[in-house]
């Protein structure tokens, strides 16, 4: 027994049947699943490039119907319902999500490409937690600090991205409903399925018709929704580019707007950091969800005195990341969500080569089919390079160095974005000093990519405005 052989983990795939995938999905309006009159879309499993299902999309008339249904539901019932009653619906939804957790996790992984480990252990539990947390707010809004009787806004038009399809739906729907608004939500074009199963859960919870409406489709449906005069509130999570268009579109309408946009977060590692945990935090920061995370720690700023040591440990650790079948319980990094996104990641990575950064790629094997990109670390990156400035939204880390805390702050803040930042040091006073100076809405110290419904999340500067989660997050859905 002194052999030294490679221990290959046998495939441990989660069963696809659990997802109860249907050949066709329909939009959800006024409490019913109905045929949309838009051009149906085919949603693809990015890990295999196979079509998963056909999904009906909304035409402008359908969006109008959904907004009207939401308006009726708000004016006649939901907006006037006692908070304690609204709360019970949200609690029901939270419980139903927990009951159908495994199904939702597998479905999410199929449609999005994220590893089942993450959809199972992160996305779906947070979805349930979000409904549970906000359920409790519904009859306690008077204590939230917005006056004795804060009123809902009315109909919320919500547009969400493909990186956390179900979680983003929960982030949008739960606070909106808790505050007494009704919603029309457009899931992302490439990941519409889990939101439609959430609609089914709303049905099972007996949520009154029209309180939640789901209108699948591409950007044109989103634009239709955002521009609809019957919408009182617009909430968008997605790219800064589209966020600006929406802010322009909403100008002059009086619609309340919150935006959660892109980021280029600095993860700052000092020489006195707990290095093994820092490496884990760096890995989690950029390779969690294939780097499809607006708050990803995509810029590693490491103090020069430990840069070599840290990079070596980091590369070794990244080499152990298992890239492949997202349904395999042992997969750490899944599939890139779409061919377009893969092309964008490749293009930006090539710019890194062209601009003189040093590319290191994990030697992990990649599947033959599907959209995959091996974990990549660029070192010798300069602030001026595109890979240090633009959001890559993929498993690509740019490593820069610094010498002093002031330099770290200056480099970290040298971006129009301001969503998140990381600090790694064992020195408490330096953590607080840094946390105060970093212009970012979320600062993780000695940890990264933590989320909780009680913790407000959102950006500074071009990463958007408004918060999601906690007491601060309620403001987005109240007329205050």
């Amino acid at each position, binding site marked *: 027994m002194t052999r030294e052989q490679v221990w290959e983990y046998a495939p441990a795939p989660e069963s696809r049947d659990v997802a109860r995938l249907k050949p066709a999905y329909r939009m959800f309006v006024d409490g019913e699943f109905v045929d949309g009159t838009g051009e149906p879309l085919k949603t693809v499993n990015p890990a295999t490039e196979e079509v998963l299902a056909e999904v009906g999309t909304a035409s402008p008339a359908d969006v109008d119907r959904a907004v009207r249904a939401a308006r009726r539901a708000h004016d006649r019932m939901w907006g006037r319902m006692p908070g304690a009653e609204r709360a019970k619906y949200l609690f029901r939804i939270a419980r139903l999500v927990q009951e159908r957790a495994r199904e939702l996790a597998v479905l999410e992984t199929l449609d999005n490409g994220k590893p089942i480990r993450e959809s199972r252990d992160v996305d779906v539990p947070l979805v349930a*937690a979000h409904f549970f947390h906000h359920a409790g707010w519904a009859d306690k809004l008077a204590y939230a*600090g917005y*006056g004795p009787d804060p009123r809902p806004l009315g109909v919320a038009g919500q547009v969400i991205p493909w990186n956390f399809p179900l979680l983003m739906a929960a982030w949008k729907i739960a606070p909106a409903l808790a505050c007494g608004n009704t919603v029309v939500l457009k899931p992302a074009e490439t990941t519409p399925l889990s939101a439609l199963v959430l609609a089914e859960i709303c049905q099972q919870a007996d949520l009154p018709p029209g309180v939640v409406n789901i209108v699948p489709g591409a950007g044109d449906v989103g634009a239709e929704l955002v521009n609809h005069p019957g919408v009182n509130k617009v909430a968008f999570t997605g790219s*800064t580019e589209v*966020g*600006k*268009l929406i*802010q*322009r579109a909403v*100008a*002059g309408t*009086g619609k309340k707007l919150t*935006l959660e*946009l892109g980021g280029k977060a600095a993860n700052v590692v000092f020489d006195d950091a707990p290095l093994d945990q820092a490496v884990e935090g760096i890995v989690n920061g950029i390779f969690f969800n294939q780097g499809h995370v607006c708050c990803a720690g995509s810029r590693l700023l490491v103090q020069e005195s430990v840069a070599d040591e840290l990079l070596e440990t980091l590369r070794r650790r990244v080499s152990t990341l298992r890239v492949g079948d997202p349904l395999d319980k042992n997969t750490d990094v899944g599939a890139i969500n779409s061919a377009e996104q893969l092309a964008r990641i490749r293009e930006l990575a090539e710019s890194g080569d062209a601009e003189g950064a040093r590319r290191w790629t994990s030697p992990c094997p990649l599947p033959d089919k599907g959209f995959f990109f091996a974990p990549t670390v660029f070192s010798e990156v300069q602030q001026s390079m595109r890979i240090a400035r633009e959001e890559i939204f993929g498993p690509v880390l740019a490593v820069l160095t610094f010498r002093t805390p002031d330099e770290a702050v200056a480099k970290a803040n040298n971006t*129009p974005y301001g969503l998140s930042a990381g600090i790694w040091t064992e020195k408490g006073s330096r*953590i607080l000093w840094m*946390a105060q100076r970093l212009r*970012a*809405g*979320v*600062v*993780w*110290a*000695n*940890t990264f990519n*933590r989320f*909780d419904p*009680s*913790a*407000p*999340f*959102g950006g*500074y*500067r*071009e*990463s*958007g*405005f408004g*918060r999601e989660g*906690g*007491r*601060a997050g309620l*403001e987005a859905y109240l007329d*205050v």
Partner: protein
Amino acid sequence: MSEQRVAVAKTYKLYVGGAFSRSESGRSYPVTGARGEFLAHAAQASRKDARDAVSAARKAFPGWSGATAYNRGQVLYRVAELMEGRRDQFLAEVSAAEGTNGRRVQSLVDAAIDRWVWYAGWTDKIATVLGSANPVAGPYFCFSVPEPTGVVAILAPQSSSLLGLVSVLAPVLAAGNTAVVVASQDRPLPAVTLAEVLATSDVPGGVVNLLTGRTAELSPWLASHADVNAIDLTGAPAPLRTELERTAAGTVKRVLRAPASEPDWTRTPDITRLRAFVETKTVWHPMGA
């Protein structure tokens, strides 16, 4: 029979970076009182003056936002103290500008002074009221604090030359922001006198930068300026509001929209204006031995 002494007339200037200057453009415009009488010339700021004002505000931001809340509170209270000393001057100027007299103008000036006191008291309470300890489901200490948004461009109310101005400026400062203010276009003189108060108070130079001139000319430059973080459209001319809001989207500025009509500034404010110009920062740290 005594000879009438000839009063020394004041030159009304811009206030940028802690210094009073004429517009770099050399322009000025006549300001008339409520009954149409000539009062003075005011400097007519240009886009370059606006640019300089933004630079000055940005430069002053680290110091002002980094000052302790207690210190900011005392500094803002000091503004009230100094205004009190110039009460007669403000009465005269507001009266001339707004055409109000007697008890009415007194109540406006008194309310403006008291508003500084009200907001001065807020500086060290904003974080308590708007911040939170977040009971996250894990071994973390997680807290959220409101931080100033940054450089705020303020289009001051057009009607209420002093009380309206103080009501929009004080909350911006109390929250720790620095400001570029475009004063009421037709009633700019009390604003310039307020700037003189600020200059002699303990408010550091650059924290407040006051421009007089054409709101319609200056506001697009402020709305599009990439180093402005937020814009208050309260005094924006109605036809321009939508376009200014669109322009502000270019750098995802926070926009405080104009109310349909100018509010009654004499009413006790709430914290809406404090909330409008802060960013919530959430900080996580693990708890482990």
